[in-house]
């Protein structure tokens, strides 16, 4: 596996195991439908699960699978193993998010049913350090994954293919 998705160990035994989007297992966030699991070393698995949901609510793309959000956020766990300040920023920020969700909806953030309801909660914390950090990091770590570019139609590097001179630089046909 390539470095940027190394954390997502495939767990084929879990394929089709449940209808829930995520499961929490010992030390891991597991997505049975997409057949991957993200092991966490420093953060609580529930925290990583909530971070992934938060990331999707910040930059929702219905055609992008959860694993790309997970890859984009993996470093929060990796860095938290040696960065206590980061770890507490994340754990406390997510605890606050869940607290707000419980006050409004009686559930954890990830269990709030509608995106608009979760976004309303995010709006309350969007000036806070965790949100700022997650959003500003995600705008690079999500959209700079070459694997997501095809979803947007973006083709990436072109010089190795000789540019677009003979590959459709002027092929628009509907004008």
């Amino acid at each position, binding site marked *: 596996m390539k470095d940027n998705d190394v954390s997502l160990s495939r767990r084929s035994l879990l394929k089709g195991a449940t209808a829930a989007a995520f499961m929490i297992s010992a030390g891991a966030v597991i997505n049975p439908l997409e057949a991957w699991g993200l092991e966490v070393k420093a953060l609580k698995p529930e925290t990583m699960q909530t971070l992934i949901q938060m990331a999707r609510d910040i930059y929702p*793309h219905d*055609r992008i699978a959860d694993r790309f959000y997970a890859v984009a956020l993996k470093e929060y766990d990796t860095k938290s193993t040696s960065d206590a300040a980061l770890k507490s920023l994340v754990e406390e920020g997510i605890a606050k998010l869940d607290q707000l969700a419980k006050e409004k909806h009686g559930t954890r953030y990830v269990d709030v049913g509608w995106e608009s309801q979760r976004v309303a909660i995010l709006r309350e914390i969007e000036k806070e350090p965790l949100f700022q950090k997650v959003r500003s990091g995600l705008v690079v770590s999500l959209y700079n994954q070459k694997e997501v570019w095809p979803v947007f139609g973006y083709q990436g590097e072109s*010089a190795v293919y000789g540019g677009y*001179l003979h590959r459709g*630089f002027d092929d628009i046909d*509907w004008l």
Partner: protein
Amino acid sequence: MAAKFDLNDDSVVVIVGSGAGGGTLGTELALKGIKTVILEAGARHEIEDFINDEWDSFAQLAWADMRTTSGSWRVARDFANLPAWIVKAVGGSTTHWAGASLRFQEHEFRTRSVYGDIKGANLLDWPITLKELEPYYEKAEFRMGVTRTNGIAGLPGNNNYKVFEKGAKAIGYQDVSTGRMAINSDERDGRPGCQQSGFCFQGCKFGAKWSTLYAEIPKGEATGNLEVRPNAHVLRIEHDASGKVTGVVYADKEGNQHRQKARVVAVAGNSIESPRLLLNSASSIYPDGLANSSGQVGRNYMRHMTGSVYAVFDRPVRMWRGTTMAGIVRDEADHKPDRGFVGGYELETLSLGLPFMAAFLDPGAWGREFTSALDSYENMAGLWIVGEDMPQESNRVTLSSEKDQFGMRVANVHFDDHPNDIAMRAHAYRQGSAMYEAVGATRTFPTTPYPSTHNLGTNRMSETPRDGVVNKWGQSHDIPNLFVSDGSQFTTGGAENPTLTIVALAIRQAEYIAGQMGQKVI
């Protein structure tokens, strides 16, 4: 073969910076037989090193050393330590530029006379006219191989251009073309024609786009009169008791400091670093910094009135394919004050890759309004607005209290839009959106200016020493053997992308410096 000069050789011309101004000046001087050392703060990356990847290329080429910002411009909020997207590498921002090569218009050299006294603006006529610069524009266009000059064919239009052209004509614009570009439309000067690769901003992998890195500097080096010293970050300029400059002190890659002696020093570090260097060179004789008896060093910072309009259609455009900026509407470039502002603007095609579109479409935005725009990336067309902004004394590069890796105070860039800039931008957003709506756009995005790419005016030319920093030759009013050779010498900004004018001024300045040295005046 490239020269190698001794640090104690005080007969050399030392140029700080290797971009459009410094790279051209150094090459011209070398071709005239003058021993020249270009000190470049960045590394030397050749064509094969360039990367077709926006963030990786940014990490390779961009000036990422600390800078600070202030003022009401949105860049200060969104990119507080990145006021400008310019380059720290041999070739300077000519590695990154898009290639648009337009001459200034006649009236743009005398805006104080034509526009009048605009409240809050520090307008001044240039000490030169278009007529004086025309022979040098001709030389610049020839050596850069500008399309639609010298019998060179225009570039073909890409998908983004075709949408742009059809929309422009639909709303009545007439001066619409793939522009005058310093990008080969066919093989020329030992470089190939454009392969429509995109990634013009990341360094052209084919060398079809003119850059001092490979189109000028090697010619200077071949004379044996030019040495380009990369990773040589100039910290200060030194002078003798008479006030004349004697050399510079620079830090190498390891941070070790060296003193390069010089007969003449020319500063070409772009409009943020050049005034910073003059200010950081303050001494007992020049307590306010070098060349600063007017107090104008660092003032009148201009960045062009810019912005972008992106539009989404119901079918694919794939704007990223092909030349990034080969498309221009010039109908709004004239001074037509009945529009509610002075000066004019150009509309030019532009595209960003998906990673930079995410970062720059609406910095800080999140949620579905933002992501649904990106979901339509493949169906997007885009244009850039570049217009004349008003010089203001308070828009200014000053020394911050923060220090860089060498212990030198970094530049703070302060900027507020002038009401004229705001009125012009609003007009351009309306026109750009109308173009795209005329060909079926379902949604348009008036996009905020990016970190500055056109940095101008902070060491401006003036007829009289009290109004500016340098004379009509880019020579300091205060110190005869100290020159400014980049866009910071612009008295006003014009509506045109500045590189062609920087190159024309550098060619002209080389003649002057050679003449003055020949007469032993400097």
